């Protein structure tokens, strides 16, 4: 017999519990040491910043919450030292849509829903590329019809459009029209014959050479001077066209960066396989180029959304315009701080949202490229 071969239950291998990490390598202290106090310069900066936060935070908290008024009217607010939130609540509808008829609010609501649904569908990647492109191109048309009224819906004059709705609309139409336009300009600049190239370069450099505010002034103030009254299209449309041109010039340069990054072999291979030059550009070069430049394209979209706030100087009451004149309502005079705080918050929310959405799309695009 070989007793040694017989194993009893006592001999079964039992791993010992993992030993704790050496002291000081885990936990909050370690994290603090690594991230905030890893050298005398960092420690000093951290201390100053923490001090600053501790100094500012109570005042901000007091104003925002503790001393703030949450119900009542302007007189209740004036008796308290904190923020006046009933003001924002009361003004909320006009901040969102301006002087748009409030009984027709469902219409911009539907347009907004369509935007959110399409954004969600785009993210889930359920639809084919071509369908998505068409859907996005149709979205502004749908939004304009819903907001402005057509097909038997009550017409709403463009001078009544305002608030956040107008800001989003200007940015949405601006982005969706200027991306294709920018791609065309970039292609013209990169592949075009000398004449087309010169035209594209001329347009891009001319538009990029002037600030947006000048373009808006040109569109809104100067244009009606030179055109006979019958030919003058309305103010909003002129502004929108100005913004599209401005945005397209920048988009074109972003897209050109993408075009230059596509190796020559791609075009050569495609042409060698007998694909026509146009199709090569449309189905081989442009999709790859756009994927390369997705981050800066999204950056441009965010920038354009913020730029829409400039339209106040040409008499359009966008979100910031409504914020400004809400603080001038005789009923609610003296609550400018609340108004601008709310404006900053909403702009941040939307821009950060766009940024997150863009990053999500990029990640998806990256996994697609690996696949």
């Amino acid at each position: 017999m070989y007793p040694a071969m017989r194993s009893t239950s006592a001999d079964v291998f039992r791993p010992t519990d993992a030993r704790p990490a050496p002291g000081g390598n885990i936990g909050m202290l370690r994290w603090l040491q690594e991230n905030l106090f890893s050298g005398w310069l960092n420690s000093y900066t951290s201390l100053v910043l923490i001090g600053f936060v501790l100094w500012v935070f109570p005042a901000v908290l007091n104003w925002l919450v503790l001393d703030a008024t949450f119900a009542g009217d302007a007189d209740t607010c004036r008796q308290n030292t904190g923020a006046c939130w009933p003001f924002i609540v009361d003004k909320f509808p006009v901040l969102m849509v301006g002087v748009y008829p409030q009984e027709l609010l469902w219409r911009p609501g539907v347009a907004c829903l369509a935007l959110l649904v399409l954004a969600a569908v785009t993210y889930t990647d359920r639809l084919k590329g071509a369908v998505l492109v068409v859907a996005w191109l149709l979205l502004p048309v749908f939004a304009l019809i819903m907001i402005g009224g057509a097909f038997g819906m009550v017409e709403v004059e463009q001078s009544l459009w305002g608030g956040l709705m107008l800001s989003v609309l200007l940015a949405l139409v601006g982005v969706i029209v200027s991306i294709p336009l920018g791609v065309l300009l970039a292609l013209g600049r990169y592949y075009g014959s000398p004449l087309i190239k010169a035209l594209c370069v001329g347009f891009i450099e001319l538009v990029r050479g002037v600030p947006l505010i000048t373009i808006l002034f040109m569109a809104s103030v100067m244009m009606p001077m030179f055109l006979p009254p019958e030919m003058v299209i309305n103010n909003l449309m002129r502004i929108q066209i100005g913004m599209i041109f401005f945005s397209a010039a920048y988009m074109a340069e972003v897209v050109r960066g993408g075009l230059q990054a596509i190796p020559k072999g791609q075009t050569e291979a495609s042409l060698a396989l007998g694909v026509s030059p146009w199709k090569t550009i449309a189905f081989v070069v442009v999709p790859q180029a756009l994927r390369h430049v997705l981050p800066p394209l999204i950056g441009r979209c965010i920038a354009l959304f913020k730029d829409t706030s400039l339209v106040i100087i040409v008499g359009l009451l966008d979100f910031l315009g409504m914020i400004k004149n809400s603080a001038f309502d005789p009923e609610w005079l003296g609550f400018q701080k609340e108004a601008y705080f709310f404006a900053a918050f909403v702009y941040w929310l939307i821009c950060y949202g766009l940024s997150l959405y863009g990053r999500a799309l990029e990640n998806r695009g990256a996994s697609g490229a690996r696949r």
Partner: protein
Amino acid sequence: MMKTRIMVLAALAATVSAGAAHAGTLEKVREAGVLACGVSEGVPGFSNPNSEGRWEGLDADVCRAVAAAVLGDADAVRFVPLSSKQKILAVSSGQVEMTSRTTTWTMKRDGAEGVDFTQVIFFDGQGFMVRAESGITTAKGLDGGTVCVTTGTTTELNLADFARAQNIQIEAVVFEGKREAVEAYLTDRCDALTTDASQLASFRMSFPDPGAHTILPNLISKEPLAPLVAHGDNNWKDIVSWTVYGLLAAEELGINSANVDEMAASSSNPDVQRLLGSSVDTGNFVGLGPSWMKDAISAVGNYGEIFDRNLTIPLGLERGVNAQWKDGGLMYAMPIR
């Protein structure tokens, strides 16, 4: 350089548009069934959207009165917010039929920029606000005091001129922006704050204790605010001017939005009968219907009602020089007959 170029272009365009006859505005408005009226992007008491998205204020109500007189419907107005750069041009180029946007009537604008001013609806001017406890009651009482003012503006120059003309000592404390000047006044850095009187009133309403501040009755500059129309259509200018006169006359004659129907039916005062079209079709003189003023008054009330509703009640602004001539003010309606 850039500015000169823009000025040249603007002058050029103004000549062009002034040359083009803007006849037929009345027909244009009637055909469209709506009056395009330029207003501000938000000036308290003059034109500002309220929480329901309705334009309110003195300027907005004048637009409504004209729409009521012309179209019989005070709501047939398309309010077009205009920035101060656009306010003259939008009228001279025909984008709006009239502008009622806190615009000062000056010779240059009236003569050289392709627009015509109609009738003053508010005599504004640079005024002073002081703390009520200071006991100062007239601008001259500021002698030896300090005044908060924004730098580089006509406001600052007016203040210096006023002090020199009155031979009093006023120390101007200058600030970059209006907000800073207001904050400084509130923290007692000066005895008085100076800017246009209508603005002082809205600043005062934004203070924690509006009752502790007084606006002095003296105005040291002239800012007559009047609606404007394009140069060249005399009939249209008459319509807007006489609508304003009508609102003033209604106050003088004691006609208001509550009693207008009764007055039209039973008043024996010939002036009232003429104004409301009961005896003579006065509207016809400018191409309007007989009920022009009746429609306007029942919609927005007389001038006094409009002033109270938009300026006195919400902003605490006194009538002052804007009172009727009989009460020692400057508001004087030309005879409607």
